[in-house]
């Protein structure tokens, strides 16, 4: 099923950008500012650097067997049963984060726009289009991402340009107060949400089989562009809202949009800016969900993943309703437990994969090409 799907490196690049920005665009500045205050944007730069290293690791792994998805890689390198166990962990992460993102987007709407609308209605609407996209397949997702990236960049540019007159560089001073260690530590959250979790993108990597070298470049560049956008946003948040305020806001990016005011004429356009977040959140949810269904299909060696989309979609909605009891709990969990979970699945397991591969290299190379799964 996956062999017939082809996307080009540019489309992949766009998907990587959306994935990297995803949730980060909304809250990363706040999380960073809470820990390192004025130096939030420096922490974002460090985070992007670390992120690139991790992406480099992922692409290295993917390039051993370009035609295999991450699930198939696991089975090949770890062997059938251990491989399946590892894959189950991976899929559970993707599934959990699908619901987590649903909760996330619903909370955002409910806090800022529609406070009395039931969360379940928002989640069903969101999941409806996610399921639709995944059913239509990766090619459709990639093409729609190609269209939306234009909208996304235009909106981001409007936000950046309109808000820039309010930059106060004094808010950034003093620079480099926090030590390097604190800076690196605080960037971990950003690194996990935008780079470590990007391991789910290895599920769509084989769709680029013919242009592997370019695909690797797309992955790295996409991550870098996404990282730069988050750096810009952190910079804007801290320099306009100030470190204290950025840390206090739940959605500093949205707060920035609220503040746009050009000559008392161009103002109150935060609703429009909300599109930025929705587009990014939507594609990130789609990619998580795609990884979930495709992962399950491949673990069970199903011929087609499509029959799984609707039931899993329903489950994702239900889980999203019970996953966090309240927003405070969500924030707490996201910045502690989920980081470790992500690091375990997205960093520890791939590293283990590298070690095992190093030992079994010769044996694996000799074995003939695997039969199509």
């Amino acid at each position, binding site marked *: 099923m996956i062999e017939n799907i082809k996307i080009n490196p540019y489309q992949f690049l766009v998907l990587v950008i959306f994935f990297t920005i995803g949730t980060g665009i909304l809250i990363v500045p706040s999380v960073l500012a809470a820990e390192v205050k004025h130096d939030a944007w420096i922490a974002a730069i460090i985070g992007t650097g670390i992120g690139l290293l991790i992406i480099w690791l992922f692409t290295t792994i993917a390039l051993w067997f370009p035609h295999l998805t991450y699930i198939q890689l696991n089975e090949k390198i770890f062997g059938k049963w251990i491989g399946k166990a590892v894959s189950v962990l991976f899929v559970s992460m993707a599934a959990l984060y699908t619901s987590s993102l649903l909760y996330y987007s619903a909370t955002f709407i409910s806090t800022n726009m*529609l406070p009395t609308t039931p969360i379940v209605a928002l989640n069903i609407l969101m999941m409806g289009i996610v399921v639709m996209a995944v059913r239509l397949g990766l090619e459709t997702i990639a093409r729609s991402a190609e269209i939306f990236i234009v909208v996304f960049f235009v909106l981001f540019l409007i936000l950046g340009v309109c808000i820039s007159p309010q930059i106060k560089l004094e808010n950034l001073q003093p620079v480099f107060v926090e030590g390097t260690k604190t800076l690196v530590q605080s960037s971990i959250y950003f690194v996990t949400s935008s780079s470590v979790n990007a391991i789910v993108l290895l599920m769509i990597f084989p769709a680029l089989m013919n242009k592997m070298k370019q695909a690797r470049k797309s992955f790295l560049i996409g991550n870098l562009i996404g990282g730069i956008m988050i750096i810009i946003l952190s910079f804007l948040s801290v320099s306009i809202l100030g470190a204290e305020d950025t840390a206090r806001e739940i959605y500093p990016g949205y707060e920035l949009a609220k503040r746009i005011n050009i000559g008392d004429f161009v103002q109150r356009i935060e609703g429009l800016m909300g599109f930025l977040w929705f587009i990014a959140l939507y594609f990130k949810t789609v990619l998580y969900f795609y990884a979930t269904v495709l992962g399950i299909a491949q673990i069970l060696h199903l011929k087609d993943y499509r029959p799984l989309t609707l039931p899993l979609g329903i489950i994702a909605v239900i889980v999203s309703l019970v996953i966090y009891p309240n927003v405070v709990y969500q924030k707490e969990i996201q910045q502690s437990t989920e980081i470790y979970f992500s690091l375990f699945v997205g960093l520890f397991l791939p590293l283990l994969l590298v070690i095992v591969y190093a030992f079994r290299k010769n044996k694996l190379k000799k074995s003939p090409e695997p039969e199509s799964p």
Partner: protein
Amino acid sequence: MKKSLLVLLILTLFLSGCWDRRELNELGITMAMGIDKSENQYVISAQVVVPSEVSMKTNSQGRSAVTLFQASGESVYEALRKMTKNSPRKIYPGHLLILVISEDLAKEGIAESLDLLSRDWELRPDFYVVVAKNTTASEVLNVNTPIESIPATKMYKSLKVSERNWAGTKGIILDELIKDLLTDGKEAVLTGIEIIGDKEIGSSKQNVETITSSTEIKYDHLAVFKGDRLVGWLNEEESRGYAEITNSVKSTVTAIPCPKKGKISVNILHYNAKVTGAINKGTPEVNIKIQAEGDLGEVQCPIDLTKPKTIDELEKIYEKEVEEVIHRTIDTVRSQYASDIFGFGEAISRSNPKEWDKMKEHWDEEFPEVTVNTQIDMKIRRIGTVNNSFLEKIKD
């Protein structure tokens, strides 16, 4: 076919409406709000626009353009919601322009009452906050104003205009206020608002029917805060000194003495002040560097304006005057209120973050002792449309 019809039918369910729909005619748009406190209860006054009176299409029926609703409660939010008991529409604060806090409440502390305003999703934190001097917030909101039929708009615009052209007032929006309250080494100030004249007549239509309004509301004085409590007021001269130190002068007119007698007014067009901190032999020091540029606007003394030397002399006088005002302001604030409203501590934290960490705890004792150096550079560029004043000939 049947299947797609079914899908369409299901989809219509989503179109039936949205939970959070609110029509314009269900909202009571409030543009100014006041917070008072009496006997542990918050008294909230909301100045709500009467749509039929301000709309262009329907003719005015001669009623007041705004109406004032009041409610009290244990918390600001509760009081605001309780207002539905006497208002036919739910109060919508999304277009709030100005928030008036009564002096009594400000003396007790304003922080508690501000949380709602930064937390509520309907509000944008870009409205001005002012303190009602010698009166209550509800009384300030109860005055009819000429020119602008909505008093909230008058209060908003007049603060904006005077801040830009006079500099003795300072429009502080909620965000800045909260930032000032939070920042170590900087205390908050707010502009004061006063009622002049009879409060009874002020609320009636009569007030705007005569050429001279018998009652008017006016900005004056700056309220000095320490923490979130009001500790005193700066008078007009000190308010301008404050603006001069904190670089909030956009344009202003300053009268300076002539070399011999009389006055000359300078119209300041460009103004830039920079406060930097430093540690000199272990003691904190603050340098204020001011660059100003302006024109001569009014000459009331016989003086020879055709000579470059005169201009140099006037520049010197201006520099000296401003320096004096600045030092007088700093002295008053230090001796009477001991509240670092100028952000000297913040300036030091920016330049010497490590030393500041040590100093932070006892900054209150350090602040009155800080050495303040000023360096003012003023340039007069133009002298208006005439050379020497005609006064010279008359006086002869």
